[in-house]
């Protein structure tokens, strides 16, 4: 029996050590990218980009039942600072007055445009043009979901780069220029993702460069969380061209690779996440040189979940999205030339991010049960809890250190202190609660398959 206890305890301890060591390694791996960014930041002596050679961009805006907000959102996009772009709004069979609001606000008229259906999508009813806004086109189609609307947008787009827009984001006014830079510098670039930051409570933080730490403690916990994985984690992976999970944020795609890949899938929750994983798989299968970059600049801001209920729903959705994306591209790690994306990133996301919550919750349950049954003494149980807390604390601190070394979005003492407190408290129940929700999502997804 004692051998059995030790047999159970050792893997649990080692699992936590390995997971946190991996996060720490990713943070360390992100440092050269950040250093390069910091080194080049004060350099205004590089010649400006010649606007005639900047690739034009098609912004794709899926719109469904958003009569109240769509006009302002489209106005915001039309005011973007970029040399050449078009805004393709796809009205996904809205049942409210979305189309009418657009027609009235922008003076839309039906136009005899020939629609090129390169990717399967629901039928298009009418394509509208605006005499007042030459950059705007609105495609009215039958209801088919976000992925279907995006595929219609891809079909209707005219330019070589695609920028799917989520109307919940707040984008920095130079965001598109920053995202397009890897395409100018590296011809192998097929996609560029940004990192994502948590916006100040309800405010349009980030667009103007004025950044404040959210007031709500729940939002601050999410700030720390977003610093760790979606920011420095992604940068660490991107250095190995293994940024597998890039979603929920601004991504610029090369259109030809999206078309070749068959566009967005309709049967997944996060179509952008799945598409990025699929692009890795397809490019590796073909043995073509490619690069998926991540820019560290804070250009995309998303509102924090405001309540525990909303947070739970969001995390459960993300968990299912991750499981679906990995499952649909399960061949990636088995490919001959799968590289870091298949050999490192895929197993990392599968065992630490996808199955991780199950392993963590099982570990907590098992250790508690063994303690309550007297199989391990109180000291061993305390040592386990101390190990879990200390590892999480160290990784959180390393994340905050990177933030201090690089962007310092929260430079005031008070903000830095509040962020540090959130980083400590995050490990005392919050992470465990999120792991529980993610396990719940995973088990529901598993049962529904």
């Amino acid at each position, binding site marked *: 029996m004692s051998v059995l206890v030790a047999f159970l305890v050792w893997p649990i301890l080692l699992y936590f050590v390995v997971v*946190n060591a991996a996060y720490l390694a990713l943070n360390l791996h992100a440092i050269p990218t950040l250093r390069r960014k910091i080194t080049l930041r004060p350099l205004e002596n*590089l*010649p400006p980009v010649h606007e005639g050679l900047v690739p034009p961009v098609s912004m794709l805006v899926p719109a469904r039942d958003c009569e109240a907000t769509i006009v302002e959102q489209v106005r915001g996009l039309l005011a973007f600072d970029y040399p050449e772009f078009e805004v393709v709004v796809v009205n996904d069979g809205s049942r409210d007055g979305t189309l009418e609001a657009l027609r009235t606000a922008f003076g839309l008229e039906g*136009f005899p445009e020939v629609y090129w259906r390169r990717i399967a999508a629901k039928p298009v009813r009418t394509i509208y043009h605006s005499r007042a806004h030459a950059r705007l086109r609105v495609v009215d189609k039958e209801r088919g979901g976000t992925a279907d609307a995006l595929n219609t947008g891809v079909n209707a787009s005219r330019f070589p780069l695609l920028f799917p827009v989520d109307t919940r984001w707040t984008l920095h006014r130079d965001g598109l220029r920053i995202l397009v830079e890897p395409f100018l510098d*590296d011809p192998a670039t097929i996609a560029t993702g940004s990192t994502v930051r948590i916006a100040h409570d309800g405010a349009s933080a980030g667009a103007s460069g004025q950044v404040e730490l959210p007031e709500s403690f729940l939002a601050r916990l999410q700030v720390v969380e977003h610093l760790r994985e979606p920011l420095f984690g992604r940068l660490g992976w991107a250095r190995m061209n293994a940024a597998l999970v890039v979603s929920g944020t601004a991504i610029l795609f090369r259109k030809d690779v999206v078309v070749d890949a068959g566009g967005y899938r309709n049967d997944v929750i996060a179509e952008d996440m799945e598409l990025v994983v699929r692009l890795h798989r397809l490019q590796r299968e073909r043995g073509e040189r490619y690069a998926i970059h991540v820019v560290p600049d804070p250009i995309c801001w998303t509102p924090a979940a405001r309540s525990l209920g909303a947070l739970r729903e969001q995390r459960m959705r993300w968990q299912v999205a991750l499981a679906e994306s990995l499952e649909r591209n399960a061949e990636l790690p088995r490919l001959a030339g799968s590289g870091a994306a298949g050999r490192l990133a895929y197993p990392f996301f599968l065992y630490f991010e996808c199955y991780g919550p199950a392993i963590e919750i099982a570990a907590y349950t098992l250790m508690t049960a063994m303690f309550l049954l007297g199989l391990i003494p109180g000291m*061993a149980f305390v040592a386990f809890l101390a190990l879990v807390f*200390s590892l999480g604390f160290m990784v959180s601190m390393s994340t905050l250190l990177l933030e*201090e070394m690089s962007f310092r979005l929260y430079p005031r003492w008070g903000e830095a202190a509040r962020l540090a407190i959130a980083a400590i408290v995050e490990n005392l129940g919050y992470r465990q609660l999120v792991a529980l929700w993610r396990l719940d999502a995973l088990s529901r997804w598993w049962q529904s398959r």
Partner: protein
Amino acid sequence: MRTVYFADPETAFALTVAAVTFALGVLLLFAIAALGALRRWRSRRIAAIEAQWRGQLERAVEDPRAARLPRIGMRELPHFLEAWNRLRESAAGDAADRLGTLLTLHGIDERALRMLRKRSTRLRLAAITAVGHLREARAWARLEALTRHSGPVTSFAAARALLRIDPRHALDSLSLAIPERGDWPLARLATVFQELGAPVVTGALVTMLLRRPRPGLDRVVKLARFGQPEKISGIVRGWLGSSTDPDVLMAALAYIEDRSDIPWALGAASHPEWRVRMAAARALGRVGGREEMPALLELLRDPIWWVRYHAAHGLTRLKGLAPHELDTLRQDARDAFAADMLGQALAERRWA
């Protein structure tokens, strides 16, 4: 039943790891606080020093001998050079010369030359830019060596500095690197070519175009727009009869500007690569007349949307074709896709 005690390896391991990582976490917390304090102190100090420089730099724009620069230590030198470079970028004519004199008077030009050998990218880049602005011929050999640096930022900054010092000589020196260095951002290189002007860059562009570098020809063709068209056009159009490479043919078709080249465009209209057919459609629309209508009508039935689109627009631009004839063409078209595309092109022309 044996329980796991404090002295057991599992507990000892967990406590040791917890203690070490907790200590590391606390250490990192202190590092965050110390780094924050250091950065605040440093930025205040730099701001104070910069305030002194700014006044003197502005005075130097009027009279460099009247400016009294405080002693600039090695730590402040990159900041100073960056501030000087920024001001120098916005200055022109005599003001630019006077800013250069200021550096010479204070021996900073010598220090910038020495900084070219530093390992720090930031120091080296500030120095590269400064010696470029100073048109410092003594830096030539070092800058030439730096253009071969593996990092695109350093090598490209060095190339730009050379182009500032002696544009024609630098273009000769860089004519191999410009097509080959795919990591030099073309959109930034284009800005430099535009700044230098067509009379300066045409010679080098002609040399590069005649050499037809592979890979890199696509880069040179894109830069060719900054040369003198009368000298570039003949070379590029000459490729029509001597190449089957789609990229080369597309570039050549873009330069067709009179009817004498129409046979080449008609030949390219049946090329297996759709991008070449698209370029042929554009060329035929640009210079063609009524005689080219059958070829464009054929392209209007192409399986590729973009070829049909440009063929339709080509038809609307053909010389000697009246609008009502296009409407008739559209109504008579047996291919529904072709008719629709022509309808779109006509509508776009009316909206434009």
